[in-house]
């Protein structure tokens, strides 16, 4: 595709449910990032993949959050036993190169998660 896509665009979950959010990066992009954007805040880093390797997961807020990118392309962010504080927009971004910030990050449209 032409850009980064994310699905679903909107997700409403009852507290305690598990959710899975999908990111399709631009084809050939090595680096993939997940961010969490709470209302009125900037994106906050969650985790970073270089191909299939998760090199940094320091931003994941709890062990209920888990991300994977098994074949180095599509990535899934899973949140177990959702809580109200998990309500946010989850953004995915990809970049062509690894470790070279001269390459632009391209952002997806985000998934808006609402936990009721």
């Amino acid at each position, binding site marked *: 595709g032409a850009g980064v896509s994310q699905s679903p665009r909107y997700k409403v979950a009852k507290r305690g449910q598990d959710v899975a959010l999908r990111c399709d990066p631009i084809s050939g992009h090595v680096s993939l990032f997940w961010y969490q954007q709470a209302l009125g805040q900037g994106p906050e880093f969650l985790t*970073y993949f270089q191909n299939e390797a998760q090199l940094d997961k*320091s931003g994941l807020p709890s062990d209920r959050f888990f991300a994977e990118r098994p074949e180095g392309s599509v990535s899934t962010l899973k949140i177990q036993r959702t809580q109200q504080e998990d309500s946010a927009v989850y953004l995915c971004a990809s970049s062509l190169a690894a470790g070279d910030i*001269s390459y632009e990050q391209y952002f*997806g*449209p985000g998934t808006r998660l609402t936990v009721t």
Partner: protein
Amino acid sequence: AQSVSQHNHHVILSEAASLELGCNYSYGGTVNLFWYVQYPGQHLQLLLKYFSGDPLVKGIKGFEAEFIKSKFSFNLRKPSVQWSDTAEYFCAAFTTSGTYKYIFGTGTRLKVLA
């Protein structure tokens, strides 16, 4: 800890007014700085970036930013705004200290009145 601060949360201007949005960072090492923009209903997209060299960086749509190391600042400017500049603007820093990630400010919502 590294952080990025944007002090103006909401800015309202009339068309043709000049714009300056503040951004300060706290980071002791090599710093790489960015401004991103999010137009209503659209994705975040890159406006401009600074890695090294000339501290005055020019970006798309007539925007520019100046890196002032002594002030830890990277303010965004545009001499004459248009209605179409209505958007949310995010300053971000890239850090390689122990990790590889971007740190974003909280954003500034700009509304330009026609």
